[in-house]
């Protein structure tokens, strides 16, 4: 059967979860979200929107999908959320938050239970958005900047607070969509931007696939089931405690998953499947090259010889010795969320490709998407490169170029850098060795991590 033709990804484990995920990937690609492959990882072509959205769903990540209106930003997230979490599409639609200037905390998070309030009791009615594991914020940049901060904590930690009550989502993923700047959009505030693990662009699929999309109606119906939608609605609006709703929801989701298996031949993931996948993924670690390369990137995105670290309020010194590195091209400092995002998505990718370790290829593939929204380039760099020929949106293009440059640099220095890190480890353990010398900022950072002898 065509949709199960996963021969291209031949190295995944036989009968493993990877096969199921790739079947979901192929199903979405062939039946729901038509688009061209736009990245190649280890010789395999992938569509970045589907791939990163799948990883977001699996790894409990946070993804921002950008693109022109009508190019499938929201629908791609809905389809993936539905298949990874066994949620009927109607339920996902009903829980989406749409970004608009009049949006309120009561519509996003929860409201007082008015019946109880009349009786003098305080209780919260939580929104579906705050309760279900697939959270979609449509057109997030239409939320005014002051209202974006309302969802910061929920987005970051999964805890939603209203009045004196709080619910915590143990398992959730977030998809937000954003149009390019127009008259009705606002800037996404920096703390919120930083909370997104990845940014992808939902691209135009080309005229032929676009034509096909126009022909294929009722594809939304594939992932719908009114009965299960009503059942879920009933559970979510019931007055029982949130913790007690979860097993009931899971039961309905499993029934919907079985329905999908019967009707389309795709077996969505049950909660235990997702947990098993995550436990398998967590065992994967970065190999030494991937680790050294990531450290190299982080050092270039945070280093300042003059002022101790990058700060957006400080400018590079004229004639700085380190002008050949990324620190000289950017304004801000890398956040601590960046390495977490890189590892999360590289782990997921390595697992999906059936690899036993996270290697350079995995980190190089995910880094541009983890980076692009977090880097603030200097104006001169933007003006130098804005006319360059490219396929990606400008920010992703710049991040890809930066990773490419860094990769060349790493190839030249990898052995010496790894030696320097190994020596750093030995010195840290008390061995009487000398630090290895080198020009890269990472050598300086290694020294800084060895506390002085008391």
């Amino acid at each position, binding site marked *: 059967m065509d949709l199960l033709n996963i021969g291209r990804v031949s190295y995944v484990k036989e009968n493993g979860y990877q096969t199921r995920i790739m079947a979901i990937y192929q199903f979405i690609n062939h039946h729901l979200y038509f688009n061209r492959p736009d990245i190649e990882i280890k010789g395999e072509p992938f569509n970045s929107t589907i791939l990163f959205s799948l990883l977001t769903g699996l790894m409990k990540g946070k993804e921002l999908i950008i693109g022109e209106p009508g190019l499938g930003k929201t629908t791609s997230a809905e389809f993936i959320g539905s298949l990874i979490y066994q949620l009927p599409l109607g339920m996902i639609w009903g829980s989406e938050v749409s970004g608009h200037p009049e949006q309120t905390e009561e519509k996003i998070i929860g409201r007082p239970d008015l019946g109880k309030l009349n009786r003098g009791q305080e209780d919260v009615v939580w929104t579906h958005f705050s309760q279900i594991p697939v959270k979609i914020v449509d057109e997030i940049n239409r939320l005014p900047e002051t209202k974006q901060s309302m969802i910061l904590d929920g987005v970051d930690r999964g805890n939603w607070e209203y009045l004196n009550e709080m619910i915590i989502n143990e398992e959730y993923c977030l998809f937000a969509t954003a149009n390019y700047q127009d008259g009705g959009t606002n800037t996404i505030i920096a703390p919120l931007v930083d909370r997104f693990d990845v940014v992808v662009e939902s691209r135009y699929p080309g005229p032929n696939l676009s034509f096909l999309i126009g022909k294929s109606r009722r594809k939304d119906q594939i992932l719908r089931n009114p009965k299960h939608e009503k059942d879920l609605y009933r559970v979510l609006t019931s007055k029982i405690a949130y913790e007690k709703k979860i097993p009931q929801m899971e039961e309905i989701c499993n029934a919907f998953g079985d329905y999908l298996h019967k009707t389309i031949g795709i077996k969505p993931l049950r909660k235990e499947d997702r947990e098993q996948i995550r436990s398998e993924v967590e065992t994967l670690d970065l190999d030494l090259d991937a*680790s050294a390369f990531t450290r190299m990137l982080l050092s270039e995105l945070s280093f300042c010889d003059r002022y101790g670290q990058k700060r957006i309020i400080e400018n590079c010194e004229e004639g700085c010795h380190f002008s050949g590195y990324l620190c000289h091209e950017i304004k801000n400092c890398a956040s601590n969320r960046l390495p977490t995002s890189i590892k999360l998505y590289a782990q997921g990718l390595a697992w999906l490709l059936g690899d036993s370790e996270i290697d350079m290829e995995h980190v190089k593939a995910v880094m541009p998407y983890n980076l692009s929204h977090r880097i603030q380039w200097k104006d001169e760099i933007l003006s130098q490169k804005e006319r360059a020929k490219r396929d990606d949106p400008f920010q992703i293009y710049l991040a890809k170029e930066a990773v490419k440059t860094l990769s060349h640099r790493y190839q030249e220095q990898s052995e010496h850098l*790894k*030696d320097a890190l*190994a020596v*750093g*480890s030995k010195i*840290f*353990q008390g061995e009487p*060795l000398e630090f290895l010398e080198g020009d890269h900022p990472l050598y300086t950072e290694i020294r800084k991590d060895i506390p002085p002898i008391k």
Partner: protein
Amino acid sequence: MKSIHSPERTSSRCTDGDLHGPRNPFEEFQTFAFQKREIPLDQIVQSAEQVMDQIRLGYEKLLEEEAKELVWMVQYNTIIKAYEVAERYIKEIDYTAEDIEDFCFALENTQKIPYLIPGPAGIYISALCNYAKEGEIVLKLSELKTEINLIGFRLPKEKRLTVEGDTGDFTGISLEGGELVVEGNAKNWTGAGMRSGKIWVKKNIGLHTGEWMMGGEIYVGGRVRGLGNIVEGKVFERDKLVYPGKVRYPNQYY
């Protein structure tokens, strides 16, 4: 910074899972088989530094032997003797034309070379050029504040020495068939005693040009301030033959 850390502090550091001390941020590299490697640039720098040390040492020896009081008189026998001393040290060094240029730059720009005495320095640079493996040598001296004397001394056949910048007195004396090009000005006594070969001076030249010259040719792009007692050879000023020619009298302004 080359800091040596004492082994005593081992106890205060922890590895994975120990909550009583700081965590080793490099612990995954702990088992990495570290080998002290040198990156190619390090090797190049190190080898260049070694060569420079040897060249510098030769120059210091020359000064010690020939300019003890930091005074050096230009006399025929002092030049010959200094050149012999320079030859003795230079023959032992494996260097390239680039090292000569580095040495010229170092003469004025490092603390490692204590004295720049234009005479011995010129003799030494000439010896370096004459014994270099390369047939063609370019010396960028335009940045130097001091004009070096005696550049091109005894430049042999099949060698071409180009000097970017000005040279001092006695440029190209005793030339032995080589080609010496001075992109700037040359001072007095240029080409004195030369036997064969060619000297091009792109700008002006001083007095006593070609004194006791026995053969060869001197081409001057600017003005010749004065000719010396020339025995044999030719001197051209802006493509015009000035010796042999009408001007027969030495050091006359014409």
